[in-house]
């Protein structure tokens, strides 16, 4: 005990919080999680606090670790798809698409136009669903419960459509190598069209309800600021990167699928309510992305053409020896698959570059000096899914 005290004397005696200097007292170690609603899953953050101020935060990962990459080494190429579903279970369609693209690029498979349109459409619907989930849970993190219910009403419509398409609500196994499993009917397309109209109206209301609310702005503006250099240094991607004012979106900069044919903007943070790169900017980037996704879906609905939904793929897939790194833009950032094949029926090595794993690594950098409640706001704004962090 005495030893600890001596150590403390030699350390810095003050913590700087904003423009205030606060006397440092003995630190209290507190475990946030693994069963804590604000950590969005089974993340444990070991925080050392000085009264309300966080001095250090250490994320402990691995509570959901299933060693997916090892499993994949024993599965044939089609059998991997249900496994990648279970990484980011809130954006399974995007996970599957990234994997399918990786294999298709190696095989040189041509995907039919209709399947391309369906894939783009469902990926954007999935992005909306995922961002709605963020919107709802982020409001809960900050103490507002009703936005969650509104968000889930709209998310439910997307999930119902996916359920009709694939038979499952969360883990779809719908995007297959060479195309998609099932065709989409005209009646379902009509529903998507109606949904777009409704979603656009609703989202404006939702943003007024939460994003422009004084309490919400007070809780998120100037909190958890990530500068441009910091974002590059930690390899951040997705809305977290764009929230710091960096215009980088794979759909625009390195188009995959048929994204080069669509007209849409890449929203970036502008520091409207506070400093550039704060939690509010990250929130607002996601809200704007929903509108951009609606734009893309409308163009898909206009352009979709009749035809097959499955390309020509041999019954037993053997990927030629070699390797490939394929990046796609998921709702949470850049998802990369690094596939090494030795020409056999199973991948020799499949490494997943998970956006959340990279994004959560900035937490120890942001936390010192924050209030505990602000740390909750920061974790929420990074929007992690633990299934993907731990894999």
């Amino acid at each position, binding site marked *: 005990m005495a030893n600890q005290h001596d150590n403390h004397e030699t350390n810095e005696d003050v913590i700087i919080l904003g423009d205030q200097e606060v006397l440092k007292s003995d630190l209290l170690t507190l475990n946030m999680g693994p069963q804590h609603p604000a950590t969005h899953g089974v993340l444990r953050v070991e925080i050392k606090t000085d009264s309300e101020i966080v001095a250090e935060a250490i994320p402990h*990962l*691995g509570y959901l*670790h299933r*060693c997916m*990459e*090892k499993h994949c080494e024993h599965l044939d190429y089609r059998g991997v798809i249900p496994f990648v579903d279970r990484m980011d279970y809130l954006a399974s369609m995007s996970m599957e698409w990234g994997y399918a693209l990786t294999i298709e*690029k*190696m095989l040189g498979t041509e995907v039919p136009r209709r399947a391309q349109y369906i894939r783009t459409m469902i990926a954007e619907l999935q992005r909306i669903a995922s961002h709605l989930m963020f919107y709802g849970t982020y409001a809960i993190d900050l103490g507002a419960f009703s936005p969650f219910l509104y968000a889930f009403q709209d998310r439910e419509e997307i999930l119902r459509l996916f359920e009709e398409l694939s038979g499952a609500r969360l883990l779809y196994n719908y995007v*297959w190598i*060479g195309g998609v*499993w099932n065709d989409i009917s005209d009646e379902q397309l009509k529903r998507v069209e109606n949904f777009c109209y409704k979603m656009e109206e609703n989202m404006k209301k939702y943003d007024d309800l939460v994003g422009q609310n004084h309490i919400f702005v007070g809780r998120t503006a100037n909190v958890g600021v990530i500068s441009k250099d910091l974002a*590059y*240094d*930690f*390899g951040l991607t997705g809305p977290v990167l764009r929230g710091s004012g*960096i215009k*980088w979106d794979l759909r625009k*900069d*390195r188009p995959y699928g048929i994204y080069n044919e669509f007209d849409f903007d890449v929203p970036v943070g502008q520091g409207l309510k506070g400093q550039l790169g704060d939690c509010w900017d990250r929130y607002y980037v996601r809200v704007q992305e929903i509108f951009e996704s609606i734009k893309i879906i409308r163009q898909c609905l206009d352009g979709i053409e009749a035809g097959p939904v*499955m390309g*020509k*793929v*041999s*019954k037993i897939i053997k990927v*030629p*020896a*070699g*390797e*490939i*790194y394929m*990046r796609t833009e998921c709702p949470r950032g*850049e998802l*990369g698959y*690094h596939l*090494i094949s030795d020409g056999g029926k199973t991948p*020799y*090595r499949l*490494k997943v*570059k998970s956006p959340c*794993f*990279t994004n*959560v*690594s900035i937490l120890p*950098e942001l936390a010192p000096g924050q209030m505990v409640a602000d740390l909750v706001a920061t974790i929420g704004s990074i929007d992690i899914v633990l299934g993907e962090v*731990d*894999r």
Partner: protein
Amino acid sequence: MLNQITDYINSKVPSANAVATTPEKGDGFVTVKAESILEVANALKNSSEFEMNVLQVITGTDYPAASEIELTYVLASFTKNLELLLKVRLPRGDKNNLPKINSVVSVWRAANYQEREAFDMIGVTFVGHPDHRRILTPDDWDGHPLRKDYVVQEVYRGMVVNPAHKVNTEDHFFGKKLKETMDPKKVVNSWKSDDDASVEA
């Protein structure tokens, strides 16, 4: 592009011995000597031409036949819109003598978690890492799961790993049983590729 990067690395760090490989299928990569990874990383990040400002991922692959471990550093430039697979090869070592390589945390801080994962999963020690611990498995876990010869430990802290009564062995033989009891080709709604056309007819 790869050749330009290779020439650049060789001019900046002559000891790196960079070699570009461009296969017929898939992505090409640059291999450098493991000892000079830190200099190469610094040179690539600070070059005005390539500006590799983002470290995307560090992958480890085990090659037991060659008794080597291959680390792949996937670098990207968000300003110049480039992507590079940078590879090093290390001797495989054994449990008590893991291969060593210099850490690149001083160049990209994203390497912190990536190197911890590589250490945890494939068993490579990163010299100079500020927080060299396991990240996904518990700190006292035994072995490195993504090595090809990994065998899961039987007992961990008095708990039996994969107890027999919890492993559903029947499912392991589901496919085999299906073939014995019924004709899989007759399963309704099963996926059909164009190759099946001849079988159907």
